[in-house]
């Protein structure tokens, strides 16, 4: 057979192509063998990662997380893409949850106080002993007929854990005091007064065209910042919409103010008057919904005295700006107005918020897309949202009880009132009158340092739980928290290590022979019973033919929700606008105490609960980029006049105390306001928090909103004095020079023509 050159080339090419193609058919050789390495370090990471869905407990919001677990160790957290509250995003506080798990100063077993109270000397005891001691003390108290002298202090606990705690306290006969350092009491009261709602509604930022926020740093720390920030992203840059307008009213230049199109720096406590002025313009210009305008100004409420020109002096905002904002708010619908944060933290806080929330009626935003959407009641009747925290007035009553020796046992979990309550209340001294303080904290925080008995609870990554978010996303959600890892101290045996708070309470209840009426022996049984009720409803995001598959599906997705289960409540008729109330400031004397102190919740440390975690300490504040410290923001001209430079140690004194902080002159601060972040100044709290910075909450005046009894934490006046010390403010921005300082190292040299 003659082989032509062409045929030869075809055959050669075809063979080569075939060889290449069929090469891929085989199994690679390495797949067919398995190798014994010569040496294998014990800690070598092999194998694959598992991801478990759970709920973050680092802040009250409760974001859904997925946790990467390798070899039984949690390595990383990410946002749960499915979970309605955060839909795949998460905050720096969630991220640091790992450090709460691996914190070197975690309490590794039950402790009993050894030395003087507050001396920090504890001795390790077994769980049997610890639970026995608590049961014994509580039963002794009950035998004396003093059950009501048992006070349970927790963070506001919702869902199943809330149910367990509530039943434990009520069936024992004690007092329950949910504690929040920055309380929502006034917000809840305003929502009730304005919308007749018991749960905080959803603000549909995502679909709004105009957002008017008063005092609440909603992109940073307020209520549900991850969800709001996500909605905000769509509000500004959504593909299918025009860019929305954000106007922020605040007496401090916050991160939300920095993001806003317009920041109105209102005089502290004047947010309500400003809102009434905006209402006046909308009604006078004929832009308001007429029915709402009639309802709001019923009984001949004449708003003319709030015309921008009449109040501009008082609120500190130019009349032209009030007018422009009012017209923009009324014309660029759908628009939404909400308030909270420092606007609520005045003696007239309720007035401020009611006036702000009433604006929504004028533009027809109540119950409408892009406005205020009501949240439905929780899916399970006996599994509520977190209860309202005890108001500041309640705390003052409790302190009085403590001083009179009428508190026999103080049980504290997830709360740090010793740190968070202003010194002027006298809580710290009063704790010495309480014969028994029990803490369930996993870290020795300020309150726990004063405890007699510490029953450390699991980190949230080791524990069961559930969450009924408040505020919810506009429909029913029950989030489920599952242990992503086995308890870190499990290896210490069953008598030491940590235990779940609910399980400890259930054991103590057994010892006290209290029937909690719960379905099961362990907290997991209680959760499974709740899940069974959801299973039987047969609606929503997880449905299954049998309970076992349902339970698996529930844990895989991180919870259950039903997007069609929305609130059936129709918007109520608009209530009449509130009469203005003047804010009061303490002390009144503005000559001696010339500055308003407006503390703010730290981005990373929150109200102080994040201070023990170094990642959060090292997270720069979005405005100042400062880390690891407490600083005081001062207007740049005021600072110049007082010859204050950045880093000067400033003594900030109110009539109730004195703290020191590093000066941060800032052009965005109003001249008569100073701002200090919350979160630092712990006396205990582990190696990263202890003795670092100072706590603005400690010098607050014990003043409160007249109607709700909530702490008016922005109503204190202070004076500032320069000390003779200077400390470099640890911050990111301008920390390195932006040009080479060596004068012989030119980046570019321009030669003249002569050379």
């Amino acid at each position: 057979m003659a082989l032509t050159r062409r045929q030869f080339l075809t055959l050669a090419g075809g063979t080569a192509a075939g060889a290449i193609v069929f090469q891929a058919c085989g199994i690679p050789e390495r797949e067919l063998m398995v190798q014994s390495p010569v040496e294998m370090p014990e800690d070598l990471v092999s194998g694959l990662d598992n991801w478990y869905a759970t709920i973050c407990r680092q802040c009250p919001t409760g974001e859904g997380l997925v946790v990467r677990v390798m070899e039984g160790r949690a390595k990383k957290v990410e946002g749960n893409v499915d979970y309605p509250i955060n839909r795949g995003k998460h905050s720096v506080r969630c991220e640091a949850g790992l450090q709460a798990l691996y914190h070197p100063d975690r309490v590794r077993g039950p402790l009993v106080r050894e030395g003087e109270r507050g001396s920090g000397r504890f001795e390790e005891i077994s769980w049997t002993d610890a639970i026995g001691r608590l049961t014994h003390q509580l039963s002794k108290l009950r035998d004396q007929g003093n059950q009501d002298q048992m006070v349970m202090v927790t963070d506001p606990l919702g869902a199943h854990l809330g149910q367990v705690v509530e039943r434990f306290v009520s069936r024992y006969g004690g007092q329950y005091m949910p504690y929040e350092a920055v309380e929502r009491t006034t917000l809840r009261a305003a929502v009730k007064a304005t919308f007749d709602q018991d749960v905080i509604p959803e603000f549909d930022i995502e679909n709004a065209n105009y957002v008017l926020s008063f005092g609440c740093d909603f992109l940073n720390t307020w209520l549900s910042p991850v969800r709001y920030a996500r909605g905000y992203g769509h509000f500004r840059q959504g593909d299918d919409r025009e860019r929305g307008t954000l106007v922020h009213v605040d007496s401090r230049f916050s991160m939300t103010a920095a993001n806003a199109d317009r920041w109105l720096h209102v005089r502290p406590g004047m947010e309500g008057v400003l809102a009434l002025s905006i209402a006046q313009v909308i009604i006078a210009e004929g832009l308001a919904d007429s029915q709402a305008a009639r309802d709001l100004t019923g009984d001949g409420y004449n708003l003319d005295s709030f015309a921008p020109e009449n109040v501009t002096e008082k609120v500190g905002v130019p009349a032209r700006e009030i007018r422009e904002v009012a017209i923009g708010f009324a014309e660029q619908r759908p628009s939404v107005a909400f308030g909270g944060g420092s606007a609520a933290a005045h003696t007239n806080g309720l007035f401020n918020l009611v006036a702000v929330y009433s604006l929504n009626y004028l533009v027809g935003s109540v119950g409408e897309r892009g406005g205020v959407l009501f949240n439905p009641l929780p899916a399970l009747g006996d599994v509520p949202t977190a209860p309202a925290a005890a108001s500041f007035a309640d705390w003052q009553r409790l302190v009085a009880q403590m001083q009179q020796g009428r508190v026999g046992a103080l049980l504290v979990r997830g709360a740090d009132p010793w740190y968070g309550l202003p010194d002027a209340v006298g809580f710290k001294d009063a704790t010495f009158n309480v014969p028994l303080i029990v803490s369930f904290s996993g870290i020795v925080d300020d309150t726990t340092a004063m405890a007699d008995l510490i029953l450390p609870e699991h980190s949230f990554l080791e524990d069961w739980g559930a969450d009924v978010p408040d505020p919810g996303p506009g429909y029913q959600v029950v989030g489920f928290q599952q242990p992503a890892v086995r308890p870190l101290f499990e290896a210490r045996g069953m008598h030491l290590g940590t235990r779940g708070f609910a399980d400890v309470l259930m054991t103590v209840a057994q010892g006290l022979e209290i029937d909690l009426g719960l379905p099961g022996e362990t907290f997991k049984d209680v959760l499974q019973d709740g899940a069974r009720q959801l299973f039987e409803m047969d609606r929503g995001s997880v449905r299954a033919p049998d309970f076992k598959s349902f339970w698996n599906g529930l844990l895989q997705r991180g919870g259950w929700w039903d997007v069609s289960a929305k609130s059936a409540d129709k918007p109520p008729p608009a209530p009449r606008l509130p009469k203005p109330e003047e804010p009061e400031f303490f002390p009144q004397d503005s000559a001696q105490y010339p500055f308003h102190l407006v503390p703010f919740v730290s981005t990373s440390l929150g109200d102080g609960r994040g201070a023990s975690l170094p990642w959060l300490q090292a997270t720069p504040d979005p405005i100042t980029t400062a880390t690891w410290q407490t600083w005081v923001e001062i207007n740049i001209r005021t600072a110049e006049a007082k010859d204050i430079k950045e880093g000067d140690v400033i003594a900030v004194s109110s009539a109730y105390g004195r703290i020191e902080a590093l000066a941060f002159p800032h052009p965005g601060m109003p001249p008569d306001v100073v701002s200090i972040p919350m979160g630092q100044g712990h006396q205990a709290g582990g190696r990263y928090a202890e003795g670092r910075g100072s706590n603005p909450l400690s010098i607050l005046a014990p003043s409160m909103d007249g109607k709700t009894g909530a702490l008016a934490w922005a109503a204190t006046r202070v004076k500032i004095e320069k000390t003779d010390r200077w400390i470099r403010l640890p911050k990111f921005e301008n920390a390195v020079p932006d040009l080479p300082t060596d004068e012989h190292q030119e980046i570019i040299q321009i030669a003249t023509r002569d050379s």
Partner: protein
Amino acid sequence: MIPGDFQPSRPPGRKLLLFGVMGIVGLAGFVVTALIATFVISSWLGDPVIFGYEEGPDQPIAFPHTVHVQDLGLDCTFCHRNVTKGAAASIPAVALCMTCHVAVGDGLPEVEKLRAYFDPDGDPDTDDGRPIDWVRVHRMPDHVQFVHEAHIKFFSERDGIAASATCSTCHGDVGGMTKVKQVRTLKMGDCVDCHREYSAPTDCSTCHY
């Protein structure tokens, strides 16, 4: 023979030879095809049938599970250390074998092989150990993710038994095998049947992720 009768022309010798060879080649081809078909069809339905391979493959060292498990009573997890912690059960490192075999098993040829892997030149100060390339017996395709830890946890918690008592559910009585052999098909049908039986998830993404 009648003259003029039709006579088939006698094939020439060359052609006869060709037919003979073709016949043998064809027969051999048929046998090979049948063997391949047996292999393909049996692999499709269950364990592949390869004649002469009923025992499991020869390994570089004829490691007897019988001695270690039945006679000495070692736990599976003593050597397969990662099995309760991660995806892979993990094959023990040579160093782990040597913790005993540095002293035990003098004179046994297979133990000498092991020692030769660990320290070929007999000088403990030189770092010249070689890994052992075992022939893989249980293998999942690349698109399947199997995590030992979750399965062991499930069975041991359900029945309240030790982790090492659950291995035989899938691997059979390895302790009684001189050569390790796959006893279950471990195909998707096998996985899914079992997942259904114990109400484990049967979403695609449970294993294919």
